[in-house]
């Protein structure tokens, strides 16, 4: 019996099996994104974080359990992910993406932004843009969040879409919302790998309070923005 018997007719497994992605951040979003991509059968996954597992993480960061408190997230995540299927080549990277020595691996098709602050997101975006690879952005707060795929010049940049963002520190986040946004990121990352991204130039907003799921059409600014302006 195939490990992927129950979804192999829905996605081109051959393409997925030979693809590599980079997941930035192993918190609430990164935990679910990584687990889903491994279960889907992605060929290779780089996972990166610079933090340690803390007790308040356990409400939503599905890779970790009580015994992991105090461990590096990358180490605990590698332990858990390597036990799932043994079919994905995994590489854990304990790093700060803002560190100027950091660079993205050579063999990735794209990055998944599961970060929790804008400064690092914009740095990740700049690195992805230099490479010309896609970035699947996700963000969460309370009971809502957004997902979009960035691939300039085809799409606006994250900052062109979101405008003047604000760093907010520790937020309330509802665990089912976090895993829902992460699922949408894993869905979109798979779409992008398979060459059919659904959220290029579109901002998906999921609000579990309303409840509503809406897709807002984005447009590039009329004049090209100088990247240094952003």
């Amino acid at each position, binding site marked *: 019996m195939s490990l992927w018997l129950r979804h192999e007719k829905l996605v081109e497994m051959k393409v997925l099996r030979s693809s590599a992605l980079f997941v930035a*951040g192993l*918190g*609430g*979003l*990164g935990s679910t994104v990584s687990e889903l991509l491994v279960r889907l059968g992605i060929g290779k996954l780089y996972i990166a974080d610079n933090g340690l597992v803390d007790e308040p993480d356990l409400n939503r960061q599905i890779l970790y359990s009580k015994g992991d408190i105090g461990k590096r997230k990358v180490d605990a995540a590698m332990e858990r992910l390597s036990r799932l299927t043994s079919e994905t080549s995994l590489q854990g990277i304990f790093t700060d993406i803002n560190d100027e020595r950091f660079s993205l691996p050579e063999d990735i098709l794209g990055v998944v*932004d*599961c*970060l*929790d*602050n*804008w400064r690092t997101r914009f740095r990740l975006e700049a690195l992805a843009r230099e490479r010309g690879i896609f970035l699947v952005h*996700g*963000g*969460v*707060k*309370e009971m*809502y*969040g*957004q997902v979009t795929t960035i691939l300039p010049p085809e799409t*606006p940049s994250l900052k*062109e*879409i*979101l*405008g*003047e*963002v*604000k*760093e*907010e520190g520790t*937020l309330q*986040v509802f665990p089912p919302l976090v895993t829902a946004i992460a699922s949408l990121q894993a869905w979109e990352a798979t779409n992008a790998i398979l060459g059919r991204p659904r959220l290029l130039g579109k901002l998906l*907003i999921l*609000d579990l*309070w*309303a409840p*509503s799921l*809406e897709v*807002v*059409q*984005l*447009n*590039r*600014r*009329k004049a090209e*923005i100088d990247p240094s302006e952003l």
Partner: protein
Amino acid sequence: MKRVKVKFFADLRSLAKREFLELEIEGAITLRELLKRVSSEIGINLEEKLLENNRIKSGFMILINGRNAVYLDGVSTLIEEGEIALFPPAGGG
């Protein structure tokens, strides 16, 4: 007369107590004027909520036909028709 659809997301939807508001506009009005009209329709001071010193407050996204107003002409951006989206982007991960 042309139509403008103003869509509210997240906290702004709870505040406005509706998903969207449709307005009829003659000619063109600025974003600031539009917010003033929307505020009086919904009974919430959106200018106070979204603007500060004649600028869009950080932490709020105002899309005018898919483009962020910050990179257009800010509160002076002229609007004739189409769709406006008001949303506070979520920053957590």
